[in-house]
């Protein structure tokens, strides 16, 4: 137990720890600004299909970040991100195309609908844990096609709805919107993780009983995760409806679920950057292979199996993942001078790095 605690209290994103925050904040800000500048510069060089593909990656990265908050940080096995995206994308498309709403006006409703479906699907998670929630939410993804088939007038059944257009003819403005959504989601997730709630979420994952012992409600913490982690996913669904200019059930299939999940697991679950890098690798792979190619699902399945196996074996043996080790070194560099060499030596021994 003491080993566990020391491992997690060493995480640099711990909101409660005050040391090293300034240096850490500065390096984060520099990193984020650099990424934003690079992303913002992309349309200058390319306006072809590649821009659309990068948009898709950024959108899926938002979903991965949401999934990472639920699974990576809070340890709640919710696998229904594709369902949440589908609900908010369909809400946006139906209101925009069928009822002629202004695209921007569909945003609040799409967000609410997406968050609502995640909360409803997660409700049993308040009474049962782990596998049941996983089964149920995974099941919901497989139900998407049936639900769209029941209401063909509303959802267009298999063909879906096309014509959801936000900026007619301007690919670049759309790209910047997607980029804005991506940056916003990142800042949103980062702030939660750095806040006291972030600490609560990790305690829910690692030591739920101590959360209860401290007088904090496990139930309320879970409801918080379900609501908050759905927001970036629902936002991604909304923007996908307009980026793709159409929605159809085959957008939200098993391969999307696998992409989101494998992206979270492949680099380092429970870190800020892991799922983003993972999405770039895996969605990049999907785009190269072709999303509807059988080899796409084959590769994603294998990556998911291997990644989870490696991550849980490495974590289980008490060592830290590569990402965590890099972060740890950065934190130690940042705190040089504030701590005596002996202290950082004992630290290093404790972390087993």
């Amino acid at each position, binding site marked *: 137990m003491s080993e566990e605690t020391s491992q997690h209290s060493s995480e640099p994103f711990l909101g409660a720890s005050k040391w090293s925050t300034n240096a850490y904040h500065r390096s984060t800000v520099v990193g984020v600004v650099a990424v934003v500048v690079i992303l913002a510069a992309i349309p200058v060089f390319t306006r072809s299909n590649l821009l659309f593909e990068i948009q898709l990656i950024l959108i899926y990265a938002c979903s991965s970040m949401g999934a990472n908050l639920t699974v990576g940080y809070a340890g709640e096995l919710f696998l229904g991100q594709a369902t949440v995206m589908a609900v908010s994308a369909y809400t946006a498309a139906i209101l925009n195309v069928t009822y002629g709403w202004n695209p921007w006006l569909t945003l609040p409703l799409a967000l609410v609908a997406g968050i609502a479906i995640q909360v*409803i699907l997660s409700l049993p998670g308040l*009474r049962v844990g*782990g596998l049941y929630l996983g089964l149920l939410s995974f099941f919901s993804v497989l139900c998407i096609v*049936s639900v769209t088939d029941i209401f063909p007038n509303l959802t267009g059944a298999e063909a879906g709805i096309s014509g959801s257009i936000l900026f007619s003819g301007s690919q670049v403005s759309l790209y910047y919107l997607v980029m804005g959504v991506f940056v916003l989601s990142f800042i949103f997730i980062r702030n939660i993780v750095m806040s006291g709630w972030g600490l609560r979420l990790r305690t829910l994952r690692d030591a739920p009983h101590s959360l209860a012992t401290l007088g904090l409600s496990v139930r309320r913490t879970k409801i918080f995760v379900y609501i908050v982690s759905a927001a970036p996913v629902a936002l991604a669904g909304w923007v996908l409806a307009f980026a793709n200019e159409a929605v159809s059930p085959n957008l939200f299939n098993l391969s999307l679920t696998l992409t989101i999940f494998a992206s979270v697991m492949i680099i380092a679950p429970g870190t800020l950057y892991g799922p983003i890098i993972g999405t770039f690798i895996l969605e990049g792979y999907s785009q190269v292979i072709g999303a509807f190619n059988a080899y796409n699902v*084959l590769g994603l399945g294998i990556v998911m199996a291997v990644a989870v196996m490696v991550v*849980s074996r490495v974590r289980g043996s008490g060592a830290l993942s590569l990402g965590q080790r890099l972060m740890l070194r950065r934190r130690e560099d940042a705190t040089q001078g504030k701590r005596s060499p002996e202290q950082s030596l004992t630290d290093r021994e404790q972390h087993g790095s």
Partner: protein
Amino acid sequence: LVTSQSIGIGIATGVALGSLYALVGLSFNLIVATTGFMNFTLESILALGGIGSYLLLNEAGVPVIASIALILVLGAVCGLIVELVAHRPLAGVAKDPHTAMFLVTIGIATAVDALSSKFFGSTLREVNPYVAPKPIFIEGVPIPPSYIVITLVVAVTSLILELGIRYTSIGKQLTATQLDKEGAQLVGIRVTIIVATTFAIASAFAAIAGFLITPITGASAYNGQDLIIAVFAAITIGGLGSFRGALLGGLLVGLTSGLVPLYLPVDSVDPILLLAMIIVLIWRPTGLLGSKQLRTI
């Protein structure tokens, strides 16, 4: 138009499908009860059972009895491979082995499905029936003989399983492993062998379920994915890890899938099952017959 005949057919279909769901649910629960792990690869083993019966019965012309034996053996071998590749490296080492095993086996299963669709094609193929397809009339309701075979096979299998667990040595060792793994190890039960046996038996069940279902659905690489929804619902409603729960849950879900299409569109079956799962889990978190104590945190 709903007539007494269509209701009769609905019930017959429901019982046959329900027996199949129960059989697959049993194989899931067998592993859950022994190890606590959710082995999602049973879904692809089911699909492979269907593909195997197409290859054996249609392509190679192997007699039915020999095909059954071969499918059972192949299923068991697949189960042993999964145990070796996915279960053994995770058990006892991983921090959260249950979640890890669930995700790892989902990955393997989707990869296997994609691979078999690459080789077998993703379309449904009709398989030569293992019993004559001419329906038998009971009270004026035409019932395909395969339905009766399915129901009988599942009834007999679950009876043998129940008796085997109660009265044979292996069954008692299995129960001991279920109740207390370390205690069982201490009294000299070779837990690794028991666990491997469980994986083999469960996978053989899944494979034979894939064989039995071919007269209803045909053979396809995605048979497992199509069926798994109902099986999930059956084991969740019945209670994860409970044998009788799987039977009851399977029957309830089977009757739902048999009778709902009489009144509502066929597509509404899955959402109704999802809704039923949510309600049952909120109302009785352990399922209808689940006795295993669950922790809320």
